[in-house]
């Protein structure tokens, strides 16, 4: 069966789709879609091939756009994508993910979680997260109070992990009715001395699940890189060997739970650029015990961009592809698990998210 590979790109000016055959050598770029709305996350349902794009427009509020024909035509809805009357309006959708039961989840700003059981046509608020006793004490990070990382368990539909900056990681095991903090072992350097390991309030940047069903999670945090082997109940630092403890995106290998990709920046108060202006994707193949920088084909010298929290992904091909997009609008790809890189599109708008879809046709 011939395979088709799609790279789904969210940008400040709409969604873009790149498409290639199984060789992944030649890519066609299509877009912008979604009427150039600011688009924070574009994902695909790997079962149906339906593409969803979540974002928010300065005038019209949040929306989830949908295409069932690989981007040729789109519709949009925000029905039910609102908090209870009187609450602060939902500004934008930030993250989308498909649950094990086929439901679609949306994480929004200000931090909240919504569920759709009809493919994004209508939404219901998962109130349990906002009713968490720590909610009155959540503080917005620099970008706002945003639910950006959304990790449903691929097998058990009742289990979901979320990352909220700067509130931390939370998890539910009952479909969203009740939530627990999952931040033990992660630092909050910005808190007063002696309060650097709080129950919540950590500034998580990106939370991803390793493949294999072993409960392994990785996170890139404002203050460190971490691995958990028990679903986030305890975290261990894996930042030794990296050029800094600061970065935004993380991407897990599709089959190897010991393999993770990170893009550390030069630090949180030094401009948040590529260290020394040299681009590198750092890869571990031993669950974070050691790291190797991958630079071949990436800009060296004068590269003062960053990579946002949802802007790196892998595909399910063999060998795995790795993709990232920069805030300067460059989209880069490796089809050999990070060994070497090509620029597929140099001048897109600011890239907010990168995801992939592989289908047999």
């Amino acid at each position, binding site marked *: 069966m011939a395979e088709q590979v799609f790279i789904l790109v969210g940008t400040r000016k709409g969604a873009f789709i790149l498409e290639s055959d199984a060789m992944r050598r030649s890519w066609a770029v299509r877009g912008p879609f979604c009427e150039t709305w600011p688009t924070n996350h574009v994902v695909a349902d790997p079962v149906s091939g339906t593409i969803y794009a979540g974002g928010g427009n*300065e*005038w019209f*509020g949040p929306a989830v756009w949908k295409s069932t024909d690989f981007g040729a035509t789109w519709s949009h809805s*925000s029905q039910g994508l609102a908090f209870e009357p009187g609450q602060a309006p*939902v500004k934008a959708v930030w993250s989308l993910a498909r649950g094990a039961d086929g439901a679609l989840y949306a994480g929004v700003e200000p931090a909240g979680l919504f569920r759709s059981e009809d493919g994004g046509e209508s939404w219901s608020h998962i109130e349990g997260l906002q009713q968490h006793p720590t909610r009155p004490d959540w503080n917005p990070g620099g970008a706002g109070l945003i639910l950006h990382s959304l990790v449903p368990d691929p097998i058990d539909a009742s289990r979901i992990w979320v990352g909220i900056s700067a509130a931390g990681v939370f998890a539910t095991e009952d479909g969203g009715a009740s939530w627990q903090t999952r931040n033990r072992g992660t630092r909050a350097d910005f808190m007063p001395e002696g309060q650097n390991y709080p129950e919540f309030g950590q500034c998580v940047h990106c939370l991803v699940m390793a493949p294999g069903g072993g409960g392994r999670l990785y996170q890139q945090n404002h203050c460190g890189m971490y691995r958990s082997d028990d679903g986030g109940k305890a975290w261990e630092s894996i930042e030794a060997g990296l050029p800094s403890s600061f970065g935004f995106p993380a991407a897990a290998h599709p089959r190897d739970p010991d393999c993770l990709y990170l893009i550390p920046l030069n630090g949180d108060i030094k401009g948040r650029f590529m260290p020394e202006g040299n681009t590198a994707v750092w890869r571990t193949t031993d669950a974070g015990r050691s790291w190797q920088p991958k630079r071949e084909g990436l800009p060296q010298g004068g590269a003062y961009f960053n990579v946002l929290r949802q802007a790196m992904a892998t595909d399910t091909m063999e060998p795995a592809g790795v993709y990232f997009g920069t805030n300067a609008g460059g989209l880069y790809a490796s089809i050999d698990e990070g060994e070497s890189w090509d620029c597929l599109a140099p001048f897109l708008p600011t890239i907010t998210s990168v995801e992939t879809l592989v289908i047999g046709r």
Partner: protein
Amino acid sequence: MSDETLRERHGEAGQASVLVRLPPHLVVLFPGAERRVSLKARDVNEMVDALDALWPGMRERICDETPAIRRHINVFVEGRRASLSTPLREGADIFVLTAISGG
């Protein structure tokens, strides 16, 4: 645009016939929507309901959950900035506008 292209909608007793002009950025989101629509409504809230009945989903693009007209959307009724409770008179001229916004 000619009068033939204006949409007509039958309303309830007491509702005024008004002319609503919609911004291009809003119309483009709803296939078949038109820049000028005549409809019947007693106030701005009913006007938004009538628009939503014609083009489902339009309410969420004009109003937030406060509920109120969205922060960067302006509705002018007979030249004055209106809220959802602003009453409408027979023959009122209404503009829905997008404020200067975005980047």
